[in-house]
C-alpha cells in the first residue's frame, strides 16, 4: 500500500503530533502563560445541606495579595437567576446562593496575586450555617420529606422538560417509563424468573490533566481558554449567564489531557466567566486533585430488576426499577435517565418490558456524564440477570445469550430497530478469544478459575448537530475547522483521514484547528462517542464539496464535462489532461497561498419517545454494540480476582484508524476493570472520604490483565462516514458483569454490588458455605 493510502480511511497512520506527545510539547490549558491574572481559589461548604446565614470574608480580604472575595450573594445581585445554569435543569449556581447542597460546594471565591495566597485566604473565610435535614442517599431522597431543591427548574435547552417547571416537594427531577406489552403479567405467568437488587457506586473520571479555565474581558467580550469537551455548549451557557449575544463570547480549548466526561457542560467556566466579567480582570481558575473529585462524578445507580423465561426458554419479561443518584445538581442526569434507562432490558428479543427510570437529587457532589452515560450501570443489571437465568435453566450462558440477542432489523424493547449492531459477532469474537469452547483448568485448591461473558448496547445521543469548514490551501494542504476536542481519542487524526480519503491527499497535510468559537463552527458536544459518526459525516461532506469544487475548476480548465474528471493523489485527471491541485488553484486565483473554502452540516434526527410508553421508532441515530469475555482466577482465601484474559469487542461499523480503535477498546476495558474491582467514591454523611489518588483506587499498570485482546468488529452503518461509528464507550459497557459472571462460574457466588472487592467475595463465599 502506498504511504499516502495509509493516511486514509482504514490506515493505521500515527496519531497527530506524536513527537509533541513524547517531548512534552503538547501545551495543555494549565501550561499556558497567563501574564498578570487574578488566581482563584474557592472556599467550600462544610455541610451537606444548610442555609447560608452569613459568609465572613474580612480576614481573607485583609490578607496581603488578596484582590477580592466574591460570594454567591454578590454574584446573584449582579446576575439574578441567570446565576443558575445546567444542561437539563438551570439549578446550579457558580457559587452557592442561599443554600449549600453538598459538602465541598463552592461558597466564596478568593481572587489573589497568586494561587498559594488565594488558597491560604480561603481558610480565613468562615460561614454561619443553619443546618437542614440532609438527603444522604437514594433511600432518603425517595422516602423522606427533605428536598434538595425547593422546586424544579428545567433549563430552556430542552423543550420536553417544560412540564416540570415549578414542581415542588420532590427529589425526583425526571422519570422515564418504558411499557412494552404487559411485563408484570408476563413475569407472573412465566416459568422461570430471576431477580436482583443491583448497585453500581458513584465513581470519578480522574483524567490526569487537572481542569483549568482562564477568562478575560477583551473589547467588551468575554473570552476564555478552558479545558472543555463542549465549547459550543459553554459559549451558550456563558452568553446566557452574562446576558450577552453569542458574538460577544469566545470559548477556546487546547487538546485535553484526558476527560472521559469530566470536562463538559458547567464545570469551572461559569465561575470564571462571572468573576472575570464582574471584576473586570483576567482570572485563572483551577482545581487541586482533591477538588477535582468534587466537580463531577459518575451516577451511583440502584437497579431492582427481574428477567423471566417461559417453559421453552424464551425471554418473555424484563422489569427494571432504575434510580440514578444525580447528587445535588441534575447536570445531564435526566438525559441519562431516559437514554440509559430505556436499554435496561438489554440487547435481547423480549416480548414484554417495563422500565421505571428515575433521576434523583441527593446532598452529594453532582453526577454527570461519564464514559457510558449511565449504560454500564444498567448493563450490570441485565448481564447479571441473563447469566443467572441461563444457570437456572442449565444452559450455557454464551449460547443462551446468543439465542436471544437482537439481530439486524430486529426491534428492541423500546421500539427502535437494529442496524449495524453486530452483537452476535462481538459475542462470538470474545468467546473464541478467551477459549470459551476449550476445556478449562478450574483448579482444585485455593485458586479457582472461571469464565464469563457480557454484551452491551448503547444508543448514540440523538438528535445532534455537527458542522465543518474546510479551507484548501493553494499548496494542496488543508485546514479543517471543527469544534471537536481531541482529548486522546484521536479525533484530529481520524477527521483528517476522512477528509484526505475523499480528497485523495495526504492526511498529514491537513491541520485540524482547535475549537475556537470565533472560528470553528457549532458542534453539539465531543462526547457520547458521537464524533466519528456525526462530525465525521460533516467532514466527509465538506471534503466532498471541496472535491466537487476542484473537479469543477479542472473541468473548466480542461474544457471537458465535470463527469469526465477524476481526482487522483497527483491531481485532477481527464483523459490526457492533467494538472496538480497547486497549479489548479494558483491558476484560478492567480496567486500563491490562496484558499478555497467549503462548509457542511450533518444533523441527526429522531422520533421523540412517547410520554406514556417510552417507545419510539427511531430513538437513536445508531447503536453501539459490544461484548466482553473474561477468564479469571479467584483466590478463595483472600477474595482477590486475577484476570488472566480479557477480550473486548466493539462493532465500530468501519475502523477509520484500526490502531486508535484498539486503543479505545483497550483503554475502556481497563477503566472497566477498575469499575468492576475497586473504583468507588466513598461518602460518609455526605463527606467524600477517599478523594485522593492514594485512597481512590484506579487501575495501574499492574492491573493490566495477563492478556488483553481488543477486537474490532465491522458491520458498516449505511449512513456512517465510510460506514463508521464511534467507539469511545463501547469497550466499557460489559466489563463489570463479564468479570462478575466469571466469578460466578469460578466459585458459585452471585455478587450484585460493585465493586467486587476481596472483602465482598470472601464474605459471599462464607455465606455460601
Amino acid at each position, binding site marked *: 500500500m502506498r504511504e499516502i493510502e495509509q493516511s486514509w480511511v482504514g490506515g493505521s497512520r500515527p496519531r497527530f503530533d506524536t513527537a509533541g506527545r513524547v517531548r512534552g510539547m503538547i501545551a495543555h490549558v494549565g501550561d499556558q502563560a497567563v501574564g498578570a491574572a487574578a488566581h482563584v481559589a474557592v472556599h467550600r461548604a462544610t455541610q451537606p445541606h444548610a442555609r447560608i446565614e452569613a459568609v465572613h470574608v474580612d480576614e481573607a480580604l485583609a490578607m496581603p495579595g488578596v484582590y477580592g472575595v466574591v460570594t454567591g450573594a454578590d454574584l446573584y445581585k449582579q446576575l439574578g437567576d441567570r446565576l443558575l445554569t445546567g444542561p437539563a435543569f438551570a439549578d446550579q449556581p457558580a457559587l452557592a446562593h442561599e443554600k449549600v447542597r453538598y459538602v465541598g460546594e463552592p461558597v466564596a471565591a478568593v481572587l489573589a496575586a497568586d494561587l498559594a495566597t488565594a488558597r491560604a485566604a480561603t481558610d480565613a473565610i468562615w460561614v454561619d450555617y443553619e443546618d437542614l435535614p440532609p438527603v444522604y442517599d437514594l433511600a432518603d431522597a425517595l422516602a423522606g420529606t427533605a428536598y434538595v431543591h425547593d422546586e424544579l427548574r428545567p433549563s430552556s435547552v430542552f423543550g420536553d422538560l417544560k412540564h416540570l417547571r415549578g414542581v415542588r416537594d420532590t427529589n425526583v427531577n425526571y422519570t422515564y417509563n418504558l411499557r412494552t406489552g404487559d411485563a408484570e403479567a408476563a413475569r407472573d405467568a412465566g416459568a422461570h424468573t430471576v431477580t436482583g437488587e443491583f448497585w453500581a457506586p458513584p465513581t470519578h473520571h480522574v483524567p*490526569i490533566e487537572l481542569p483549568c479555565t482562564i477568562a478575560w474581558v477583551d473589547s467588551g467580550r468575554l473570552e476564555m481558554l478552558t479545558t472543555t469537551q463542549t465549547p459550543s455548549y459553554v459559549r451558550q451557557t456563558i452568553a446566557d449567564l452574562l446576558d450577552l449575544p453569542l458574538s460577544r463570547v469566545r470559548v477556546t480549548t487546547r487538546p485535553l489531557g484526558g476527560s472521559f466526561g469530566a470536562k463538559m457542560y458547567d464545570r469551572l467556566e461559569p465561575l470564571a466567566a462571572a468573576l472575570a466579567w464582574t471584576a473586570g480582570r483576567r482570572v485563572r481558575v483551577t482545581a487541586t486533585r482533591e477538588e477535582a473529585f468534587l466537580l463531577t462524578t459518575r451516577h451511583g445507580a440502584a437497579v431492582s430488576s427481574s428477567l423471566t423465561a417461559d417453559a421453552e426458554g424464551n425471554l418473555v419479561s424484563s422489569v427494571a426499577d432504575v434510580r440514578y443518584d444525580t447528587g445535588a445538581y441534575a447536570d445531564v442526569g435526566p438525559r441519562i435517565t431516559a437514554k440509559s434507562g430505556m436499554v435496561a432490558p438489554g440487547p435481547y428479543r423480549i416480548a414484554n418490558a417495563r422500565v421505571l427510570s428515575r433521576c434523583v437529587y441527593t446532598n452529594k457532589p453532582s453526577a454527570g456524564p461519564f464514559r457510558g452515560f449511565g449504560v454500564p450501570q444498567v448493563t450490570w443489571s441485565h448481564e447479571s440477570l441473563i447469566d443467572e437465568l441461563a444457570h437456572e435453566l442449565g444452559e450455557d450462558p454464551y449460547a443462551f445469550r446468543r439465542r436471544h440477542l437482537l439481530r439486524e432489523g430486529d426491534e428492541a424493547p423500546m421500539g427502535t430497530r437494529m442496524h449495524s449492531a453486530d452483537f452476535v459477532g462481538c459475542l462470538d469474537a470474545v468467546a473464541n478469544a478467551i477459549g470459551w469452547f476449550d476445556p478449562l483448568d478450574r483448579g482444585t485448591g485455593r485458586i479457582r478459575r472461571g469464565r464469563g461473558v457480557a454484551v452491551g448496547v448503547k444508543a448514540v445521543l440523538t438528535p445532534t448537530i455537527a458542522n465543518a469548514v474546510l479551507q484548501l490551501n493553494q499548496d494542496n494542504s488543508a485546514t479543517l475547522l471543527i469544534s471537536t476536542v481531541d482529548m486522546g481519542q484521536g479525533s484530529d487524526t481520524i477527521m483528517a483521514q476522512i477528509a484526505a480519503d475523499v480528497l485523495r491527499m495526504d492526511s498529514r497535510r491537513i491541520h485540524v484547528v482547535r475549537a475556537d468559537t470565533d472560528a470553528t463552527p457549532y458542534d453539539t458536544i465531543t462526547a457520547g462517542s458521537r464524533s466519528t459518526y456525526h462530525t465525521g459525516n460533516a467532514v466527509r461532506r465538506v471534503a466532498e464539496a471541496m472535491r466537487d469544487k476542484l473537479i469543477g475548476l479542472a473541468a473548466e480548465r480542461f474544457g471537458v464535462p465535470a463527469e469526465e474528471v477524476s481526482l487522483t493523489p497527483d491531481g485532477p485527471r481527464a483523459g490526457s489532461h492533467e494538472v496538480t491541485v497547486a497549479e489548479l488553484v494558483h491558476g484560478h486565483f492567480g496567486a500563491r497561498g490562496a484558499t478555497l473554502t467549503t462548509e457542511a452540516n450533518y444533523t441527526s434526527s429522531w422520533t421523540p419517545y412517547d410520554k406514556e410508553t417510552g417507545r419510539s421508532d427511531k430513538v437513536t441515530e445508531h447503536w453501539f454494540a459490544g461484548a466482553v469475555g473474561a477468564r479469571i482466577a479467584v483466590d478463595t482465601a483472600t477474595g482477590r480476582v486475577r484476570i488472566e484474559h480479557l477480550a473486548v469487542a466493539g462493532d465500530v461499523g468501519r475502523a477509520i484508524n484500526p490502531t486508535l480503535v484498539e*486503543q479505545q477498546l483497550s483503554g475502556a476495558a481497563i477503566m472497566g476493570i477498575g469499575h468492576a474491582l475497586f473504583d468507588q467514591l466513598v461518602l460518609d454523611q455526605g463527606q467524600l472520604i477517599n478523594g485522593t489518588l492514594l485512597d481512590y483506587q484506579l487501575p495501574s499498570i499492574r492491573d493490566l490483565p495477563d492478556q488483553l485482546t481488543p477486537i474490532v468488529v465491522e458491520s458498516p452503518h449505511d449512513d456512517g462516514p465510510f460506514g463508521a461509528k464511534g467507539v469511545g464507550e463501547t469497550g466499557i459497557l460489559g466489563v463489570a458483569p463479564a468479570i462478575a459472571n466469571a466469578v460466578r462460574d469460578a466459585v458459585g457466588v452471585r455478587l450484585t454490588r460493585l465493586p467486587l472487592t476481596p472483602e465482598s467475595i470472601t464474605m459471599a463465599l462464607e455465606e455460601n458455605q
Partner: protein
Amino acid sequence: MTDEPAPESSAHTRRTVLKSTAAAAAGTVVASHHTSVASAETAHTGGARTRVTLSVNGERHRIAIEPRVTLLDALRDRLGLTGTKKGCDRGECGACTVLADGERIKSCLTLAVMRQGAEITTVEGLTRGDDLHPVQEAFIRHDAFQCGACTPGQIMSAVACIDEGHAGSEAEIREWMSGNLCRCAAYQNIVAAVADAAEEGRR
C-alpha cells in the same frame, strides 16, 4: 545561565503587593518564556525568598523562590518547562517524574532548594537536537499513549527503569513502572514500548 534579581523581602502591604505583581507581570513580558504558567502556582507574596541554583537539562538557572516551592513548580512556573505535568501534586500519579542525577524522582515531592547541585533532566532534555531518545521513539512506535498527559512522566520513569536494569521482563516492567498512572490506560502499549526500548539498548 539565567538570573533574576532577588526580591525585596517579606512583609508586603496589599498596595505594595499590587505594585510588585505589576512589576512581575512586566518582567513576564521581558523574560518571555521564563515566567510562564507563571505567576500561577508559586507565591509572590508573603514569605522571604532565597536564591536557588538549579541545573536543568545541562543549563544552570539561578532563581529567587520561597524555600517551600517544589521542584515541580520551579520547573513549570519559573523555568517554563511545562513538559513536566502536575496531575496531583502529592506524589500519587507520577506525571511529574524527572531524573535527578539519573534517578527518577517525583518532582512534586521534593523542594527546589533541596536539589541544588543535582543534575535535573526533564522530558524536554531527553532529545539531542532533533533526535528523539530511544524511549521516546519506542513510545511512538507502540502508540504508548492517548491523551499524552502522563506521557512525559511515563517516559522519564521508563528511561530510569531501563537504566536500573528493571526492564528484563514484562512482569518486571509492570512492577517497576507501577508508580505512573495512565487513565487512558495505554498500559499494554507502554509495557511493549519499554520492553522494546530496553531490548534495543541491549543490542
